[in-house]
């Protein structure tokens, strides 16, 4: 008797599995960073600092961008090219605003006398975490830019389902990562 086809049929497409494994590696990277933070957080000389409100505004923008991306994906499901284009454009725009907002936030920090270099660990970590997240976000914007380009050429269709899904998973993951980081950093400033 032959074997059933089902036996080796994967549950997740290889590309999707690769992306999730990549995200697991990224999660481990930031788990490493945040555990380093926790180790130092309970040392003697630990100081806190006020996180400028603009970072919370940025957080809202990034959460909104995830929503607009959902909306764009829905447009794709109901075959509405206009919804895809507008949704993607909004997502991309919000992503850019987020980055600009982060730069404003860093400038505010510098203005208030909180620098990367020096002995204020909480501030140093803040720059490292938000900087590395911003680098990841630039990669996310490149991916979104590619899909925006395709959307305007009417090339987002059934055949591109997988690629588009992967791109949005990546973008949402960047949002989740940022929310984790900002909540983590904020909570550690409270006490």
């Amino acid at each position, binding site marked *: 008797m032959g074997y059933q086809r089902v036996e080796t*049929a994967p549950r997740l497409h290889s590309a999707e599995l690769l992306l999730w*494994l990549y995200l697991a590696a990224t999660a481990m990277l930031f788990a490493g960073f945040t555990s380093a933070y926790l180790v130092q957080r309970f040392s003697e000389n630990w100081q806190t600092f006020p996180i400028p409100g603009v970072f919370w505004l940025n957080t809202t923008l990034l959460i909104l961008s995830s929503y607009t991306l959902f909306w764009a994906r829905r447009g794709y499901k109901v075959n509405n090219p206009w919804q895809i284009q507008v949704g993607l454009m909004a997502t991309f725009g919000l992503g850019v605003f987020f980055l600009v907002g982060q730069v404003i936030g860093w400038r505010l920090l510098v203005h208030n006398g909180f620098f*990367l270099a*020096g002995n204020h660990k909480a501030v140093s970590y803040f720059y490292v975490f938000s900087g590395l997240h911003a680098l990841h976000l630039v990669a996310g914007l490149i991916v979104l830019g590619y899909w925006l380009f395709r959307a305007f050429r009417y090339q987002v269709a059934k055949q591109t*389902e997988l690629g588009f899904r992967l791109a949005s998973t990546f973008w949402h993951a960047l949002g989740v990562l940022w929310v984790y980081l900002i909540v983590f950093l904020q909570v550690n400033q409270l006490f």
Partner: protein
Amino acid sequence: MATYHGTSVETLEHISESHHTHHRESFWTKYIFSQDHKTIAKQFLLTGFISGFIGILLSGIFRLQLAFPDKSFPFLETILGKWAPEGRLDPNFYMALVTMHGTILVFWLLTGGLSGTFANLLIPLQLGARDMASPFINMLSFHFFFWGTVVLMASFFVGTGPAGAGWTVYPPLSALPQAMPGSGLGMVLWIIALVLFVVGVLMGGLNYITTVLNLRTKGMSPFRMPLAVWALFTVAVLGLLSFPPAVAAFILLLFDHSLGTSFYLSDIYIAGQALPQQGGNALLYLHLFWFLGHPEVYIVLLPALGITSELISTHARKPIFGYKVMVISILGIAFVSFIVWAHHMFVTGMNPLLGSIFTATTLLVAIPSAMKIFNYIFTLWKGNIHLNTPMLFAIGTVSFFISGGLTGFFLGVAPVDIPLHNTYFVVGHFHLVMGVSAVFAMFGGTYHWFPRLWGRMMNERLGYLHFWLTFVGANLVFFPMYYMGFGGVPRRYYAFTEFSFTSKWQDLNVFITVAALITIAAQLIFIYNFFHSMFWGKPAPRNPWKATTLEWSAPVKHLHGNWPGNLPTVYRWPYDYSKPGAPVDFIPQYISDEDIARGVRWWEEDFDPSTVIDRREDTGGEAVAASVEPKPAPALSPNQKPPAPEA
């Protein structure tokens, strides 16, 4: 028609077909930017071996210094220039040599070289896949590894020399550019090289995991996978979990080194001057580093033991003893490796209670390790042992795993480790248990799979000579180090002439150096054999070792896609050697009981496995062989109705 994630099986078959048909290949696409896993395996092997050879040459230089600290060797000035004025090695450069030797051998030879080579070669071939899940990412994986190698080697040519803080690059030595010459630009290049290396390893690892989970051929259930694949898969998971925190450690180190932060730095005086950095903690680096560093030992060892399982079973013509126990021990070792890291830090003043916990978890490693050793011995027991080169090296691996591993008991127990810490006892221990043992598996694997890689056999006589010189040599080099360690001789010292408790070992140091130089010279035999056989070796038959696993059913000449027709279907586990009632002492995995009843004669020299593989119409394995890079289908506009999927 069946659909699969919105893509019809027909499309998938089209993809897998397009995947293994030949494209016109230029030199660049065939050798440099190849996406064929077999070529990438060769790239990893060559890069690994070449950097490994450079690594052991470095040890030859610092061994000369240790044996003859007062002698001048004019040839050193010729090759090292300002680092060996008047033929005498500069102390700073001695540190750089030790650092680079460790870095190259641990990461480049035994991680990138070993896993990169055999995961690339074996995972698709032994599982019956056309290629890796993403051949493109696989190619990138090698290129990151390669450029990491270039950056690391480039650090030999910067004015202040390569990194010199030891292969573990502990701060503050590594974090302060002014600490020593090797903490300057060389250190920055070391970090960049390591980050490139980790990215390469992770890209490879993601692919290995995905390929094992998704692309096994029909019938290849998890417990029919060869142990080498089990080991390589587990190692990829280990790497995925442990390398990123190390990258976090390296990034923070780079910030401390070059951007003025103080994550790891506090209370430091250089030449009477207090540095401004306060509040940092060097132990934080140690924790992050060893959270990788200990799993890293098994990232090195598990592939070596997986390869050894294949070699011992094949060349003893016996099924591996306790297959499932072997799988469980691989998983057990992997799990325990994550909860032992602080045994590298017993002398950092940790709470004794914590020390006892880490002692206990460390000693746990002995259980799965001992299970493996017993299984190797019982596989050999009453086997029809063919003492050819791969088998000799496999037995060598087991031998070193025992003689190096037993001393792990001493070092794993905090009160014994404290006096032995940072002595030559440790040097002897890890060189035998993970260095030489893994290198032997890599040699064994190379001799065994050389015919699969290059279609030719390596020379057996030269192989014997290489084995015996290296086996005896490595024991003569590293065994005496245990005695020196008990005598309290510390590692990483430039010369042992200054103190009476170290200088009394000077004769032994000379002995070790002579043995080391002979052992290094013996590797020239391997290099000659390797390159000579590549071009002029005896042409290999398709299945030279009469092995059962799938890689030997593919044609000797490499095809992109591995099998010219169908993918093989698997009917049995990988160790059907000397099965009672079988006509010969091996039954390949793709031979079914019906084939045996039909009188298929798979053991004959001119037998072509595709006569069995291709006569089956039912090739369900193809359905999952779709790679990540499908040919882009012609785009539809969103308004255009997509073709309705067939039921």
